[in-house]
């Protein structure tokens, strides 16, 4: 077995938390159950990884199998990477049957024609997600297995999720290969980024909770009736609280929000001040960058009004994030109305 492969497998196993190693190796399926039985998973990880490498040596593992283990790790710990969403435009109107083998062939051929030194691996998951792992080399060196990019693509959708890797220069190549393989026209980056891949999928596939008005009978939800603590305590602002709750529910929906970590607003608006103050009388836009960050931005925005920190309804600049599927905005003045800019209230 190649030393590079051995070292790569060893390092990948070291990344996995100790409790998860057994399940991940089982999912990998490269080592037999009998072989897995021989490993002592209670020893220190250094020893576990050495033992795994030994067993892989017995089975003559090659880079292809090692790459699959890496994909499995990144699929489970996808929140360790930052994902960007790209959108592709289709050429014609004909129905797309999406042949998986055809897609893989076209992708590999296009990418390899531009750069021969790449390792490409695919893995399909039950939710129709196709994971592509690419290890980049240069025209003169072999692929570096530690410089990888990951692409997640759902068939027959225009969206691709790419995890930005260190080598940004290879991004155009990757995009070209995706466009060719999916029979599309072109590809553009959407202004939507997050560590939570599933949340990004929820936003673009419109799986997040939106509150639609309908007569459809809603299933009875178990309302957690908080036990009346003291009948003598009366909520004076009950009406106001109810109103805020209803407005909030209309805007954000009732279910859990997709997980985003930040929203960035680039202001290119004119500074509005008292004319007597004479600030910035040169009539130049006041450049300013506002960034909101949070472990779970949308949930915190949802709780602003009930907590009394902001008025309900919350500003549409904040609440439009899932609907517009972006968390990077450019705000310009009313004069320059374009499709991506906003009118600031």
């Amino acid at each position, binding site marked *: 077995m190649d030393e590079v492969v051995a070292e790569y497998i060893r390092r990948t196993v070291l990344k996995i938390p100790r409790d998860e190693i057994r399940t991940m190796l089982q999912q990998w399926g490269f080592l037999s159950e009998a072989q897995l039985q021989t490993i002592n998973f209670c020893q220190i990880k250094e020893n576990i990884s050495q033992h795994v490498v030994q067993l892989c040596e017995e089975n003559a593992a090659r880079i292809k199998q090692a790459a699959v283990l890496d994909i499995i790790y990144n699929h489970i710990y996808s929140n360790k990477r930052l994902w960007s969403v790209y959108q592709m435009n289709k050429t014609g109107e004909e129905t797309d049957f*999406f042949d998986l083998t055809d897609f893989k062939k076209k992708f590999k051929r296009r990418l390899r024609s531009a750069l021969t030194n790449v390792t490409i691996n695919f893995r399909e998951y039950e939710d129709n997600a196709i994971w592509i792992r690419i290890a980049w080399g240069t025209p003169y060196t072999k692929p570096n297995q530690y410089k990888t990019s990951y692409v997640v693509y759902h*068939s*027959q959708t225009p969206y691709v999720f790419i995890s930005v890797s260190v080598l940004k220069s290879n991004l155009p190549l990757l995009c070209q290969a995706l466009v060719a393989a999916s029979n599309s026209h072109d590809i553009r980056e959407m202004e939507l980024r997050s560590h939570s891949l599933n949340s990004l999928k929820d936003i673009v596939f419109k799986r997040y909770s*939106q509150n*639609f008005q*309908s007569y459809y009978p809603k299933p009875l939800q178990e309302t957690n009736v908080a036990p009346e603590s003291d009948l*003598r305590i009366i909520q004076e602002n009950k009406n106001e609280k109810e109103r805020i709750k209803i407005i909030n529910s209309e805007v954000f929906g009732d279910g859990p929000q997709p997980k985003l970590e930040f929203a960035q607003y680039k202001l290119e608006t004119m500074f509005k001040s008292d004319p007597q103050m004479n600030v910035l009388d040169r009539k130049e836009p006041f450049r300013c960058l506002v960034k909101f960050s949070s472990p779970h931005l949308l949930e915190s925005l949802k709780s602003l009004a009930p907590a009394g920190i902001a008025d309900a309804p919350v500003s549409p600049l904040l609440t439009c994030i899932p609907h517009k599927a972006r968390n990077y905005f450019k705000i310009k003045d009313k004069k320059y109305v374009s499709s991506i800019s906003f009118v600031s209230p």
Partner: protein
Amino acid sequence: VFAHLEMLEARAREADMKEEEAKQQEEKLARLKARVQQLTRQRDELQAKVDLQQKGQLGKEGVTSDPAQPSTQAVLEWKIKRVKDMLQVFCLTGISGKLTEQGVCFCISTAYDGTYLDSYYLDLLTKPEVRILRHSIPTFIPLEQLAKKYLQTDIRRFLSVLSNHLNAYAARRYQADQLQEHFSDQIEGTLQTNSLCNLLVFNYYVSNKSKTFPFNVRLLYGDLCSSIPTEVTVSCT
């Protein structure tokens, strides 16, 4: 000895003072509790008076037309309930809508073989022209194409075609899931499909006496509005 006695005296005085303080606080607490109870009683009395006055006013009107009023009230309530139930029943037909401030919100429900599946929503604006505000329709359904073709001209046709697409997709997916669930022992591995579920490929075994024959099946659903395949290829591998 003197110092010791002084110390003891000081301690005794401190203890006394503390006892006094504690007693004072308890008294204060008792007084406040009594005050709270008094105020609550007052408030309840005033509330009762207000309620009584309101009822009294209503009572004056009700007394004159007492036999007639309850029945009209009851009839109105029954009518409202009936309309609400009708609206809920409409949702079972598959396409239902509700007028909103800016337009109308449609709910398209899907079903197959007696089982109700997912519902999808479409929020439309009606002024200045009919436009889609937001929706929960999956991205692989060609919504934009259908909207371009039919939304402005014939909204009924638009909804009907969209409903066909969604129902067919839901039916295909349901069939694929059921196949996987009920025949998992005869199918090798998992079904290979795509987002729209219009291409299904799988391998299965047919055993005859002692021999098993592996087959490969490829189902192609050419018509997106249909849940029946247009092309079937069965080959023995």
